[in-house]
């Protein structure tokens, strides 16, 4: 029986069978016999999450533009489906042609968050492939990985043949060309990997030796030969107006997490919040022109039929005249009953006006992310948001009929004092008083959410220690006790252990690859899903490998220490990050790139606002 029929037979007994049928609007159909390279894009989480990822969809369509390539997709099957597949002896399959994944030429993982690492290994198991790169011979798929997590690729170094650093639109095509040379000649896998290392943006971990000091920190990272670059520089697309963007975008049949058209209006962020990794790694800021955006928006609505289009970026208010852009889209969207959504908008009176005008289906909740409870700490993290501005916007929002306010904060930031935590309480209390003063009858709902600060690679805080679990607990309780005194306030906090594991994995080194494998063998998967996450299993995995996880999360590093991710060059210099870190200690802020160049180093890419000025 062919794989497709076998799959369909299982679907009568699993949750959400629509995850496994493919068949979507704008799915790409090709004859696999007629292409040179079969590529499987894999997302290490369930379908509804993977299909919400814009990068995946861009690469899917980009690769399929090539006649010699057929790119298909695979997602992590939910546990019920995994069980059924195991019972029937079935391997992971693609959604386009229901081909088992070990028959593909290249398997490409999208790594968006560290908590999906166990799923990556689990998927390789489900493919029936050896986990370790060195055990996969020529004839088996080459396994590559891209996405933001690859800015510290080391924890997965053993399993991935090639990491693709940065934006994939151009480099992926170069890898395909090289792969074709490899496939149709007697080139060995080792030779292929060596040549791959010569492509800018490709990191081949097996071609580097890492030595350690007695204290466990890295002594040296050395390429195995002269042809292998000492540092791997990320790739960027210089011009978003000439780069590829699919407008005949694949559109799911079942409801997904972001069930709408996503249109990217610019890349990068000029703000430079010191905790934020995205703000560094996606630099420089590159705008897509208004003409292009309008053209794409029209085509997307025509081709996908969704009832919502979302203009996405890291900081939507920073798009020049974003209000005019939204109004122009509204002109044709309104008539087609298509709603516009503007996430990541800096909330003030202008943006509230804009939201009222363009968001025809109004979201019931307004969200603010002050991140820290006092101006002092907001200066430390360079989050340029003033308390008075929050209050005036909230007042306006209440007057316009909003009753739900959500506030996001981080606990455990560097230099945090207890006053900063009680400062969160003060903000919540003041907001409630503003509401009471207006004298509305209905009840207000204020939700305070806190996450725990996770120091990330390539940020000014990359050397910082994360709070201990005990400290996290104490701070959460302190805030909880305080917030109990304010009516109409709900408080929710992120799982301590999840934040802890994220901190460990995001700044991990090569030694963690064994731990991750142990964790998978102990049954860890879907770590990002509360019902599956079990820190005690992870602790056991660390114990079995004789590794203290605190070394990665709770330890402050010296500026001189060689960091596992020093091998990756984001364009932003280590000197800049260090300077920013020292400014944080002095509670001094840094302006945004729009005001003046901050000298981060990314101008060396000669793209975006770095050269526009």
């Amino acid at each position, binding site marked *: 029986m062919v794989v497709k029929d076998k799959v*369909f*037979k299982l*679907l*009568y*007994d699993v949750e*959400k*069978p*629509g995850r*496994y*049928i*493919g*068949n*979507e*609007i704008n799915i790409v159909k090709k004859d696999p016999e007629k292409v040179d390279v079969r590529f499987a894009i894999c997302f290490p989480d369930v379908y509804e999450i993977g299909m919400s990822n814009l990068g995946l969809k861009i690469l899917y369509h980009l690769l399929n533009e090539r006649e010699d390539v057929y790119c298909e997709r695979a997602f992590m099957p939910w546990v019920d489906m995994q069980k059924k597949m195991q019972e029937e002896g079935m391997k992971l399959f693609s959604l386009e042609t229901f081909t088992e994944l070990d028959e593909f030429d290249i398997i490409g993982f999208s790594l968006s968050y560290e908590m999906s690492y166990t799923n990556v290994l689990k998927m390789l198991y489900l493919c029936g492939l050896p986990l370790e790169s060195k055990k996969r011979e020529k004839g088996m798929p080459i396994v590559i990985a891209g996405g933001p997590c690859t800015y510290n690729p080391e924890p997965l170094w053993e399993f991935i043949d090639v990491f693709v650093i940065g934006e994939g639109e151009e480099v992926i095509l170069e890898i395909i060309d090289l792969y074709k040379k490899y496939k149709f000649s007697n080139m060995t896998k080792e030779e292929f990997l060596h040549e791959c290392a010569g492509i800018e943006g490709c990191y081949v971990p097996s071609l580097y030796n890492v030595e350690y000091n007695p204290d466990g920190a890295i002594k040296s990272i050395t390429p195995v030969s002269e042809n292998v670059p000492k540092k791997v520089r990320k790739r960027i697309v210089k011009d978003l107006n000439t780069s590829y963007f699919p407008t005949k975008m694949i*559109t799911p*049949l*079942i*409801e997904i997490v972001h069930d709408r058209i996503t249109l990217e209006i610019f890349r990068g962020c000029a703000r430079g919040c010191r905790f934020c990794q995205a703000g560094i790694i996606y630099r420089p800021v590159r705008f897509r022109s208004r003409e292009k955006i309008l053209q794409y928006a029209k085509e997307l*609505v*025509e*081709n*996908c*039929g*969704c*009832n919502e289009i979302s203009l996405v970026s890291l900081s939507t208010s920073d798009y020049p005249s974003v209000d005019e852009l939204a109004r122009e889209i509204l002109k044709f969207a309104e008539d*087609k*009953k*298509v709603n516009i959504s503007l996430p990541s908008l800096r909330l003030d009176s202008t943006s509230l006006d804009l939201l009222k005008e363009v968001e025809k*289906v*109004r979201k019931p909740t307004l969200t603010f992310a002050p991140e820290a409870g006092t101006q002092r700490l907001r200066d430390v993290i360079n989050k340029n948001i003033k308390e008075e501005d929050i209050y005036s916007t909230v007042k306006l929002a209440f007057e316009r009929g909003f009753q739900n306010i959500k506030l996001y904060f981080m606990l455990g930031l560097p230099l945090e004092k207890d006053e900063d935590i009680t400062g969160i309480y003060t903000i919540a209390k003041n907001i409630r008083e503003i509401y009471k003063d207006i004298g509305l009858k209905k009840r207000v709902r204020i939700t305070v959410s806190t996450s725990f600060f996770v120091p990330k690679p390539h940020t000014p805080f990359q050397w910082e220690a994360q709070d201990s679990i005990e400290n996290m607990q104490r701070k959460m309780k302190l805030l909880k006790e305080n917030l109990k005194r304010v009516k109409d306030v709900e408080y929710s906090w992120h799982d301590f252990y999840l934040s802890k594991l994220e901190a460990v994995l995001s700044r991990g080194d090569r030694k963690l690859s064994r731990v991750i494998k142990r964790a998978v063998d102990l049954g860890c998967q879907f770590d990002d899903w509360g019902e599956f996450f079990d820190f005690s299993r992870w602790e056991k995995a660390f114990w079995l490998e004789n590794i203290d996880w605190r070394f990665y999360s709770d330890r402050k590093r010296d500026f001189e220490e060689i960091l596992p991710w020093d091998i990756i060059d984001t364009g932003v210099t280590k000197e800049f990050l260090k300077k920013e870190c020292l400014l944080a200690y002095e509670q001094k802020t840094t302006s945004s790139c729009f005001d003046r160049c901050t000298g981060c180093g990314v101008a060396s890419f000669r793209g975006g606002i770095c050269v526009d000025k």
Partner: protein
Amino acid sequence: MLTNRYRFYFSRDLPAAFISHLDMTRLFERLFRRLDIKLKFTQGFNPHPRIVFILPMPVGLCSKEEIFEVECEQELSSDIIDSLNKILPEGLKMLKVELATDKIQVSDMYYQCFVEAEEEFCKYFDEFMKKSPTVKKEKEGKVTVKHVWNFLLSHECKKVDGNIKINFHINVMNGSYIKPEDILREFSREYNIECRIVRVERVKVGYKRVI
């Protein structure tokens, strides 16, 4: 009053049969938008188009003929069926469209179910059906008991190409009916006989006009 309410007839097979009821509604909304056909939307806080399926379709169900009705802001031309068929996902096929000038209700349905089960399945199943069985359903703590023969007009069980095929003729009373899958599950539980459903299909649906 004359409205542009249309009645669409369509068939559904694998893989589209695994789309849920809510997702079917959203899918057709998107397809109409792609064809630039303006549907009539509800008023209010969260407007949505009025696409009404005469019978709900459980996930996994195939059908030779189903109906949905939709109200449009415009008159539809006769090529709408072809236009839809060009963009429909595999498994869905539009059959015909007509103006819905009256109201209809489902009167009865013919089902065929294919199951993988042991040799003697039909013998035990027929025995089970003779004992005037009931189907219990629990929903939000409330248990409802349906007597199978209150809804079932006839059934037939036979072996076809290694699988078991069971035909059911089911009566629908004021929109209420009994699902063949539930009968099969009840049987499986009571007789402790494993039966794996591999296909459920509505082969024919009877309608009556209501005044």
